[in-house]
């Protein structure tokens, strides 16, 4: 078990999401940074999608009730285990009773907004519709279908048993797979169904000008501030299926990007979709971040996903190699 010691809000149990439930109108949920969650699980020898704790408000602390191998990824929060500093994106062994404390996210060459606590064996909450992620809209999954509170005790799954003694850390993917445009972080976008129904001048500004993530942004969606998108003619659409990453344009012309907790249907016109391979970049951008949209196409989106998978495969290979080496000692 691990016990939540913080009153800090907005932490939840997440995995890679609830993929097969769209047909029942149940959205994806899952980690805002699936790459960080996967990396933490690789460090521990878990399944890639083992459930973890996503934290987004700091300081945050937990107590380990038993000896636990864990990994911390995502935002660099100057984490301490019983007062001893931990490396960012590393795995460590906690003794029974040890307290892990994360401070506010630090500035660095890459800055994240969300941190992930993965444990050997994963957080063992029941699967609901094929996933352990917390779905806030429907109050299902995760820990009682809600955000975590002080005093909650989370059950841990059985660890794989294999010794993974050597201490290792990872170069954060924000550095290993950087994406910038004109000095600002960027995400790649595929044009969506109503793309051609906005004025060329406003589309030109959409690609050229930066957007800022406003405080009205959370796991459900990011409301952006930037150049407005103007429809050639007013659009009224019927509700249709949407997925995380879809960039909707409400009447005020300021885009909304649907994020993990986004609803599975909507009626606003869509100018584009942030590609799956880049959603983690957006998911880690703190409120106030200025970033750019970069145009891509279907092949570009698939190539980006391949690049991400290749990087993960290399991380997995090296982590297994070093772990096997320490086990052989």
């Amino acid at each position: 078990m691990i016990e939540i010691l913080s009153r800090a809000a907005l932490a939840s149990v997440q995995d890679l999401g609830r993929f097969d439930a769209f047909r029942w109108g149940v959205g994806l949920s899952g980690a805002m940074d699936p790459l960080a969650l996967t990396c933490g699980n690789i460090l521990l020898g878990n399944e890639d999608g083992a459930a973890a704790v996503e934290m987004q408000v700091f300081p945050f602390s937990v107590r380990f009730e038993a000896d636990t191998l864990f990994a911390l990824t995502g935002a660099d929060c100057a984490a301490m285990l019983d007062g001893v500093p931990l490396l960012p994106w590393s795995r460590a062994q906690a003794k029974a009773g040890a307290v892990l404390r994360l401070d506010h996210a630090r500035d660095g060459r890459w800055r994240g907004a969300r941190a992930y606590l993965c444990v050997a064996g994963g957080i063992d909450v029941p699967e609901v519709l094929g996933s352990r992620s917390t779905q806030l809209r429907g109050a299902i999954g995760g820990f009682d279908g809600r955000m975590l509170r002080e005093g909650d005790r989370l059950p841990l799954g059985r660890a794989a048993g294999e010794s993974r003694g050597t201490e290792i850390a990872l170069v954060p993917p924000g550095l290993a797979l950087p994406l910038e445009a004109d000095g600002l972080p960027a995400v790649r976008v595929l044009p969506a169904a109503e793309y051609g129904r906005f004025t060329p001048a406003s589309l030109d500004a959409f690609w050229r000008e930066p957007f800022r993530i406003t405080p009205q942004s959370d796991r459900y969606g990011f409301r952006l501030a930037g150049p407005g998108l103007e429809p050639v003619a007013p659009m009224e659409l019927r509700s249709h299926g949407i997925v995380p990453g879809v960039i909707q344009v409400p009447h005020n012309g300021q885009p909304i990007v649907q994020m993990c907790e986004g609803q599975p249907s909507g009626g606003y016109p869509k100018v584009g979709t942030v590609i799956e391979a880049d959603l983690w970049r957006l998911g880690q951008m703190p409120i106030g971040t200025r970033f750019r949209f970069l145009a891509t196409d279907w092949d570009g989106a698939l190539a980006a996903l391949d690049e991400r998978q290749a990087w993960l495969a290399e991380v997995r290979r090296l982590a297994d190699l070093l772990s096997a080496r320490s086990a052989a000692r």
Partner: protein
Amino acid sequence: MTSPLDQIPRLAALLAETGIDTLELAGPEGRVFLARNGAPAAPAHAPAEAAAGEPQGSAPGAVTVASPGIGAFRRAHPLHAQPLADEGTAVVAGQVLALLQVGALLQPVRAPSSGILAAVRREDGALTGHGDPLFDISP
């Protein structure tokens, strides 16, 4: 404690699955050199060149911190500009002094004892082998 020699059959088996034809392992107890396919022979068991706690051309009483693995020597975490430990500052036993980088992986180098980080014996970014002297810590 088991002898590293006990691991040779396992290492040979692992080696056979790869394209690698020589393997050298150096540690505090000695060095093991495995070769196949007629690769040149080398001393099978020689004393290790460097190990933690063994001063080597350094100030008397200083402890040499030996590399615990292989990789590029990194004084700072890639996220930060500031070195993990500055020359001339006090360090405590167990503190991370540097990192060894292999691809996306970072392995910490920890201080074996408390003291003053008297000397940095390796260039930032230099390729480092097991047992290479990295720092001197004076008591």
